[in-house]
């Protein structure tokens, strides 16, 4: 078997250039191994070789994501390795985000197998664990040896395009893809052990975590609603007639932004619903039944609200993946904030 060619990504600290004061250094590429690459080299033996190491400051990467990504991707493409490794980043937040971003980009944009590693509570973990194989590490660089022990064999498998087993076998953070494997003990035996642990108040790990429901603390109320700029958004799929953005009736792949400057009433001639998840007759008859523009304009005129933001957002809640809904929500929130919106009404069907 030929040696797997690896490109390694690390930050300024692990390249021993410096700490926080050097976090703004621009990306650079060096041939061969730098810093933690030595540990990987030892673990790979003659099966793989780090041909180049890319170094970038954490602040620089996070403040210039697009540019940093572009530069690094071009270098990686030129090296054309069999595998890309970023980090591990342990508990360093910006390093984690950088590792996740670049590892995911190499995989998605260059189609090169890619691996990173970090502490599960690193913000980069939640952001990228579903996008790229990510090994869970300890929360400090003292865990380097343990991290490499798990990352190196997984890296070799990825580089050789071997099938990847379940998360608990390979050591990567569960990525939402369920993989079968044979356990040593039968299910009933594992169930008895799990029950004994649960009864004793000891830690146990469920084999199928229920879909999680996280919570966000409520924000303080609007101080004076009569002065506030109100933004509106609906998951009920209200779009200008003809659905100009072709928003899908279910599992929508985008959201729409529509200008309602001068629009005082949504009518069946001008607007309609793109939502495929409910009987559309009533919403098409009078779209205000889903998105109450008419009433809000009245309230605006009467001074009961400061103003109605002149753009509204529409998605289709039907069958849209949680991850997409999250992404749309974050993007819409950003646009509201940029426009100075102070409070939001979300209507759903």
């Amino acid at each position, binding site marked *: 078997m030929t040696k797997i060619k690896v490109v390694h990504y690390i930050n300024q600290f692990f390249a021993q250039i410096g700490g926080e004061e050097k976090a703004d250094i621009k990306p650079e590429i060096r041939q061969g191994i730098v810093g933690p690459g030595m540990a990987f080299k030892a673990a790979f033996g003659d099966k793989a070789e780090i041909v180049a190491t890319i170094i970038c400051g954490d602040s620089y990467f996070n403040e210039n994501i697009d540019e940093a990504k572009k530069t690094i991707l071009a270098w990686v493409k030129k090296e054309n390795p069999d595998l890309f490794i970023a980090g591990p980043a342990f508990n360093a937040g910006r390093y984690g985000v950088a590792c996740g971003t670049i590892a995911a980009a190499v995989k998605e944009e260059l189609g090169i197998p890619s691996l990173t590693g970090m502490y599960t509570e690193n913000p980069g973990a939640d952001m990228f664990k579903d996008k790229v194989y990510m090994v869970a590490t300890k929360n400090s660089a003292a865990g380097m040896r343990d991290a490499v022990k798990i990352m190196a064999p997984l890296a070799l498998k990825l580089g050789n395009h071997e099938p990847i087993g379940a998360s608990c076998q390979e050591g990567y953070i569960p990525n939402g893809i369920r993989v079968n494997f044979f356990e040593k003990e039968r299910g009933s035996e594992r*169930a008895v052990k799990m029950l004994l642990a*649960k009864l004793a108040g000891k830690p146990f790990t469920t084999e199928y975590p229920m879909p999680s429901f996280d919570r966000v603390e409520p924000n303080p109320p609007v101080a004076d609603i009569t002065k506030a700029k109100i933004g509106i958004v609906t998951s009920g799929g209200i779009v200008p007639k003809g659905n100009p953005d072709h928003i899908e009736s279910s599992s929508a792949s985008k959201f729409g932004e529509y200008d309602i400057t001068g629009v005082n009433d949504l009518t069946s001639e001008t607007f309609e619903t793109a939502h495929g998840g409910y009987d559309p007759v009533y919403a098409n008859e009078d779209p205000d039944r889903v998105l109450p523009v008419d009433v809000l304009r009245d309230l605006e005129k009467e001074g009961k609200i400061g103003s109605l933001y002149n753009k509204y957002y529409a998605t289709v809640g039907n069958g849209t993946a949680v991850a997409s809904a999250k992404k749309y929500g974050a993007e819409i929130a950003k646009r509201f904030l940029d426009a100075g919106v102070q409070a939001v009404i979300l209507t759903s069907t």
Partner: protein
Amino acid sequence: MYNIAERQMERSVILKLELGYIDIKDIKFADKSEIKDGILYVNTEELKKLVLEDEDIKSVAFDIAKPGESVRITPVKDVIEPRVKISGRGGVFPGVIGPVDTVGDGVTYALRGMAVVTAGKIVGFQEGLIDMSGPGAAYTPFSKLNNLVLVCDPIDGIKQHEYEHAVRFAGLKAAVYLGELARNLKADETKVFETCGIVEGLTKYPGLPRVAYVQMLQSQGLMHDTYVYGVDAKKIVPTILHPTESMDGAILSGNCVSACDKNPTYVHENNSVVADLFAEHGKTLNFVCQIITNENVYLADKRRSSDWTAKLCKMLNLDGVILSQEGFGNPDTDLIMNCKKIEAEGVKVVMITDEYAGQDGKSQSLADADAVADACVTAGNANQVIVLPKMDKVIGVVEQVPKLAGSNEHSLRPDGTIEAEIQIITGATNETGFGTLSAR
């Protein structure tokens, strides 16, 4: 004078079953049916006569499938371990073959290492496949057994439910016939299973957590039924069993869909949750009883049954339960209802299920979910695709393969290999934790 306190302390509510295993290393057809030196000899003429007593069956063919052989059995209806009641009340398969009597104590013999497998195309989409070798064999527990296969053909114009009934009884009768051959033998190994009443339990095992096994039984209609002492399980309200009762065949499968996660009769007789709880009984826990409940179609039935299950857990003063599911889809709702309501009584739950996460493993695994279900054992993703090589011999109906769940017209390739989801394999993702397959 009648002294209640004394009476309660005196009364012994210990139920004890001695299960003797007769190891069967091989099966051969012969002129005389007998078990000699671990070999089961079968006179097929006698067995045929027995099966054909049922006028709904036109003909029956017998075959033998051994571990490691290049043999495929399909479509499998049921798998049954032959047993015989040596002493104690009742007989095996009470209320169906044996008389209506409470079983679970005394002495029972089991023919270990073998099974009666019934095959037959009851409906056109009949499921279930057992490969005796190759990659598929790892997914079915029944590839490790010497199987006596009965392929039953019905009389013309028979109704589906009559055919199902006839094949179900053919299997049970054959199992009883074979079990009888062991009556005067000496068991190769004997295991003793003993449970006790509430009073003894509290005095005998103070400080040990009181644990029960809550078993959900598929009970919805034709091809989806389970029988308890001959009673259709959809007509029961949740009730309590001594865990030894199912070892005498108190629970029988009448279920032919969802091959991977239905419980064949063999799984009820050898329930692994029961076995593994018994293994800890008196050591780390006190195995109080088995609670059986159903999985009906009607939603009010689901609510009632889960209410009752939780109520029983509370009345029995339990600390924990293991909850197992059977089948695909709507039982997920029963599973979550049971889990939520039992946990609400302060009883800790570990549940066993399997997953339908799609061929890519990316979909939501269950049709229902709740945050309280924090302890879950999984028997794997039933949508996983597998390629099964051609076998030299097929017992049953080979044209059936493209019609198995999760397969399509391309599933059966011209060279005889099959590409399909593992849900077509009998017992692949059994939800009583019978196998080792899992997923993360």
